């Protein structure tokens, strides 16, 4: 008797159909996501895992691996990278450029955005001018910058000084060897910083201007009635109200700064330094590229170190902005 009761009831076709539909409904989200998931797995997740794997294999070579070779497992690559002189140079250059360019470009972008927001005449024209770098190729612009700073001919008796030095001399200054043979490291960094800042401005202006246009004009009227000076209004009203955008711009700026590479290639070429001082301005990403050919394990390890640095810096950024951002 009891056995009969526990037996599965026989389902009618209709009930079966309903049950199938319920199962389909439960999993249909996954079905729709499948193409995206597959693409992500192939092009994002697997490369990350593979990079981690490769970074832990000694003298890894993909060709040899295809041939069936196996590699010794260990953390030697990381140790080698960290001990590498060139790596420390690259790390230093990257940090220096980031620390110089991110704050300056953010401040400049903020000022320009506020300026653009407050003018009516020529606003569109100025917007276009400021956004031009955003749509031009950074290598091409780098070459233009190089010609602006470069002297042609022998350093002692150049044929052309380059436009920047011509201007400096026109105002009675002494010319600087910006990028030529024997140029000073700090002169190089100055040129790079100017270029990177200029290149980073448009995106930041775009974001900040968008933020500014979203700020209710009445706050400014209220501030006027409350007797706040322009500078006080800027610091007490504009900056706090824009703080979410500023935080975003700074965080993305740091991330972009740590991945700096193309600007150096644009100005100094693949030698990553002025003639006669090859690699003196190399960056982390440059280091990774250099190593891909010779030692993929080491390149992977360097990439992971870069990732770790960016991760930590971003966490710090987020932590700070949580305290300072007002929304």
């Amino acid at each position, binding site marked *: 008797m009891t056995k009969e009761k526990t037996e599965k009831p026989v389902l009618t076709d209709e009930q079966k159909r309903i049950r199938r539909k319920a199962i389909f409904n439960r999993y249909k989200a996954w079905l729709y996501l499948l193409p995206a998931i597959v693409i992500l797995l192939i092009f994002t997740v697997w490369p990350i895992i593979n990079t981690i794997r490769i970074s832990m294999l000694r003298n890894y070579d993909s060709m040899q691996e295809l041939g069936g070779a196996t590699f010794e497992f260990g953390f030697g690559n990381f140790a080698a990278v960290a001990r590498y002189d060139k790596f420390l140079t690259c790390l230093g250059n990257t940090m220096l450029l980031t620390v110089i360019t991110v704050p300056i470009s953010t401040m400049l972008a903020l000022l320009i955005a506020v300026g653009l927001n407050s003018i009516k005449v020529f606003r569109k024209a100025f917007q276009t001018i400021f956004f031009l770098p955003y749509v031009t190729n950074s290598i091409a612009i780098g070459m233009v910058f190089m010609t602006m700073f470069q002297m042609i001919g022998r350093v002692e008796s150049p044929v052309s000084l380059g436009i920047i030095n011509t201007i400096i001399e026109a105002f009675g200054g002494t010319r600087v060897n910006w990028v030529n043979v024997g140029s000073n490291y700090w002169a190089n960094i100055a040129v790079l910083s100017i270029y990177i800042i200029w290149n980073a401005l448009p995106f930041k202006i775009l974001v900040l201007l968008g933020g500014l246009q979203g700020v*209710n*004009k*009445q*706050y400014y*009227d*209220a*501030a*006027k*009635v*409350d*007797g*706040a*000076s322009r500078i*006080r209004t800027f610091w*007490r*009203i504009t900056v*706090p*109200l824009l*703080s979410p955008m500023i935080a975003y711009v700074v965080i993305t700026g740091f991330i972009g700064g740590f991945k700096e590479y193309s600007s150096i290639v644009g100005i100094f070429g693949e030698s990553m330094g002025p003639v006669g001082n090859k690699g003196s301005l190399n960056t982390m990403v440059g280091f990774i590229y250099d190593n891909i050919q010779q030692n993929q394990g080491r390149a992977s390890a360097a990439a992971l170190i870069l990732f770790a640095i960016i991760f930590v810096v971003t966490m710090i950024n987020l932590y700070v902005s949580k305290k300072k951002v*007002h*929304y």
Partner: protein
Amino acid sequence: MKVVLEHLTKIFPSRNKKDKNAEVVAVNDFNLEIPDGKLIGLLGPSGCGKSTTLFMISGLQEPSAGKIYFGEDDVTELSPENRGIGLVFQNYALYPHMSVQQNILFPLQNLKGENRLSKEEMLARAEQVAKLVQIDEYMDRKPAELSGGQQQRVAIARALVKMPRVLLLDEPLSNLDARLRLQTREEIRRIQKDTGITTIFVTHDQEEAMSISDYIVVMKLGVIMQTGKPQWVYDDPANLFVAKFLGTPPINVFTGRVEGGSLYIGDEKVLDVGDVEDQEVYVGIRPEGFILDAKGGLSCKVSGIDVMGRDISVVTTNENALSPVVRAIISSDEMKNVSGEVARFKLKEHKVFIFNKESERRVHFGAQIAAHEKLVAEMQAEGQAYTTHEGALPREADDKEKRDAPVAEEKKGWLAKLKDLLPKKKAKGAEGPAEEQPAEDKQEDAGESREQSAPENPKSEE
């Protein structure tokens, strides 16, 4: 502090430079003297220039012509912070990133030189003002954590903390729900009485203005229609607009005529009006001006009764009424007498206003003449000039015609005209200009609508 406005005028220039007629006269030759320590309500429909007037008094907008005096000082050229005003914005404009305390302190922190207070003094002053508006419990909250009414009070506190000579409120209650509105308007009245600061507030809600103002200023299309104590203006409207604008439920307006000393609505003689010239008129009858009477002169078709407790509102129709329904408010005891299809009414003389049909100005008759003179005398005794609009009354229709006609023409830009000239197929081929056209149209539309809303919300102009 007495506030005097002399010939104040504000003209918003036309957005469309080609079309000079599109400029908007938001405030037109505005003359007003506001006595010290009073609460004044600027009242009018949307776009009548009341907010513009307020912003000109605040200094946020520059008058196109005219002078503003605070006491004996000409402040027309002064910037807002030097005028000694407090301004409460319609949506409060509290700084969202500052706490209540920081918001209230902000105006004090901006003071410079001798006026600068020590930190303790600032805190004490903020505390004092916060107590006045009863917000002192919430000093550490951010505006987003406060209710509408509380935000409103913070805004008032921020406006008061510098001890302004004049307090300005722009639609202070319009963002509150009905219950809070009632409570807050009492609050504003109390604060104004406690501080004795001359206060000007702007509203489109006549009930609000009537209930708390010492004086109201009724405006239409940038022009003062009438000023005076709320009850006076209600009892003795100078023209049809004022009569229609004040009172809930609104006044019932009929077309009628005066003939041989009698007032006729349709063919029915409703009232004796004595020595009034024969003329076509509008007749305004306040809802409370009806007396149910089988022998009454005015007959209306009954379509329903709204019960309101103490009173009832008899909803009727009359073919000579300008509105679809005529409302008569009578005592609920009379309800049993409302029977059948037609109700007949006798009218209370002092609740019936007649207006010349041409000029829409009030025509006083009978006992109203004496009553009117008495009111004017009373007003003058109080030092408040009785002001009504002189000359031709501004009319919506004229104004609209003038504003719309050229714009409508202009909307068809040169590209559209060019396109009209081209044969249809060719216009299709020339895709560039054809595509541009709708965009330009849109832009002009936007400009136009902004222009029309300019008097209502003038800051969007900046």
